[in-house]
């Protein structure tokens, strides 16, 4: 039993941290918003590819690093901390391993490994975050497959989103995807389920990172901002909100890591562990976003200040995830709870 990152895992995390600190400051996140200059985003993508992150979970035989879900959690937490406005998690945690497992029928894996191909993933309602900035769209078609299409092979329309850096497309075809478009990936249902859990893990890791970023921003702000003759951060009401935010994040982080370990080792507990990690991470990130905004006051409620970049990403990721009800229900069933039978508000 040893619940800590290995030296290799910490090294990858630190390398990604350093890269993102240098290449993805708030100005670059803002470049992801409509009208921004795409050049720094392209440079960032190339740098992430050169580090090997985009193909981290692709087998070494296919040019990747052959790493596991556990190895991905720390760098994706860092990607959340930086609010990278690119489909890093989608490419690295979802598309890369799925494409490799499906035998790369369209021959796109080499481009992914080399950073010449960004893959966005369609979510609920046919909304594709980062679709406007992607070379390929991955559309999961449970129970037995997925499809990889170029954006021009299907009917799409760009849609504005709360987090403007998400650059989303909406699939508009009817049916949403044409039967002959792109490349079909034949993968068994259990692999699609694993893929969905990898997406949830990636969302969870990013939510923890986003929470930490907002907490750091807020701690720095309330330490210097003075009101009523004292730093705002010395007031008990402010201290207690931020203490609770830290508590939530500190509890979520090990749960997300444990969920990734269950995925990496093929444990039977994977669905429950992934749902548990997500519920804790989403709750912690949302509560931190609220506390951060409240503790900043009106300064935080501006687009000039950086807080909104991170808070809006939290709500976007939560909206794109499978949903609290799904995870609560799945976890409840896994721990042996019967379905709810009593009527709401009823008394025996």
């Amino acid at each position, binding site marked *: *039993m*040893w*619940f*800590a*990152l*290995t030296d290799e*895992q910490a090294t990858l995390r630190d390398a990604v941290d350093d890269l993102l600190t240098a290449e993805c400051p708030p100005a670059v996140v803002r470049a992801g918003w409509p009208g921004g200059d795409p050049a720094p985003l392209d440079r960032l993508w190339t740098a992430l590819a050169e580090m090997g992150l985009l193909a981290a979970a692709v087998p070494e035989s296919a040019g990747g690093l052959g790493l596991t879900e*556990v190895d991905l959690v720390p760098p994706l937490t860092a990607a959340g901390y930086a609010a990278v406005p690119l489909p890093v998690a989608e490419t690295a945690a979802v598309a890369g391993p799925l494409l490799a497992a499906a035998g790369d029928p369209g021959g796109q894996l080499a481009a992914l490994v080399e950073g010449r191909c960004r893959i966005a993933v369609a979510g609920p309602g046919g909304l594709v975050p980062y679709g406007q900035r992607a070379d390929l769209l991955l559309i999961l078609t449970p129970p037995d497959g997925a499809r990889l299409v170029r954006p021009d092979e299907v009917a799409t329309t760009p849609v504005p989103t709360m987090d403007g850096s998400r650059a989303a497309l909406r699939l508009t075809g009817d049916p949403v995807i044409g039967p002959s478009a792109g490349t079909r990936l034949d993968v068994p249902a259990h692999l699609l389920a694993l893929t969905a859990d990898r997406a949830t893990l990636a969302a969870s890791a990013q939510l923890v990172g986003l929470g930490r970023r907002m*907490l750091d921003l807020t*701690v720095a702000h*309330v*330490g210097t901002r003075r009101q009523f003759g*004292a*730093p705002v*951060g*010395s*007031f*008990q009401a*402010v*201290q*207690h909100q*931020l*203490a*609770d935010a*830290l*508590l939530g994040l*500190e*509890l*979520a*982080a*090990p*749960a997300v*890591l*444990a969920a990734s*370990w269950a995925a990496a080792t093929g444990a039977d507990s994977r669905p429950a562990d992934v749902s*548990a990690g997500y*519920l*804790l991470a989403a709750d912690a990130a949302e509560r931190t976003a609220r506390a951060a905004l409240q503790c900043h006051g009106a300064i935080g409620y501006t687009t000039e200040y950086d807080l909104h970049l991170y808070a809006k990403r939290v709500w976007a990721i939560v909206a794109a995830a499978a949903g609290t009800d799904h995870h*609560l229900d799945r*976890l*409840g069933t896994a*721990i*042996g*709870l*019967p*379905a*709810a*039978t*009593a*009527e*709401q*508000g*009823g*008394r*025996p």
Partner: protein
Amino acid sequence: MDLRPDPADEQFRAEARDWLRAHRPSRPLPSGDTRAGFAAHLEWERTLHDGGWSVVSWPRRYGGRDASLWQWLIFEEEYAAAGAPQRVTQNGIFLLAPTLFEFGTDEQRDRILPAMAAARQLWCQGWSEPGAGSDLAALTSRAVRDDAAGGWRLTGHKTWTTRGAFCTHLFGLFRTDPQQQRHRGLTYFLVPLDAPGVTVRGFGRFDGDEGFADVYLDDVFVPDADVIGEVGAGWRVAMATTGSERGLTLRPPGRFTAAAARLVQLAGDRPDRLTGRLREQVVRAWLGARAYHLFTLAQVTRMLDGDPPGAAASLNKIHWSELDIALHRTALELLGPDAEVDAEWTRGFQFSLAGPIYAGTNEIQRGIVAERLLGLPRR
């Protein structure tokens, strides 16, 4: 990272489980916070000691079995899962003993620890005073030097002393230098409760048990051999103990994972009451216990890597105390009208309400987290 238990730890788990199954009381004992219940609990704790399970993490020379931190966690899991009785000796074992290991002399350890492990010396905590609860630095009970007798004379009033009316000894802080303010000038003393000048008066707690006591000290003599650590260094010694109280030792996660399992069982037994809202509450309470378990595994790994928890113990304290209320409150809703009946969940609920108050209120803990972990400015 490897979350699989070591084979040796699994062997330890099996051994603990088998022993607990064979020896735990066949019926629930009356509350250990009543006089009659306390006696029944002592009988159990002596059985536990005779089996070698009363202080698993201690060195063998004091009655332990040199168990690692992992094994200690496993033992606590098995103990709670077996539904074995709450430990009435816990204040000594989990609060005074770590202090003795860190600050005591060999003579003190040899004299006190084996007797504590065997439930012959029964220790209660003498922190709180009527004017000083979570604000320990406001203590006014004093100790005056008696050079001729080679010791100290203690005078003051300790209160809310858990099981004080049933214990044999008290450990606590007294002011040895009245010139010094706040946390300076305090010293950590051990006091036999049968010493001349000690008066103990039991009184009822919120949950109805007799478990609280006032301890009045009127010129009570204590020899130098019963000072822990240096004179005047009581605050530092006590803080080492309170960290242990807030953190793992007082409330290891096994207790909450076991309670969560019982809650899931209760929900299964009461499908007539399981609405969607209550099902969600059960899942979230279970999740809180699971999260605490995993948080603890990460924390223990850091401790074994040489990083003591320090102020991080305050995070544990906030979490487990609020989790305990959530678990019990949810159970009461599942019980419906039966929640009014004085039984296990109902009593547990009332006790859980004390969690955010004792061991330093949660308001104090949030202040510690804010200032020492987040680095926010002090008022």
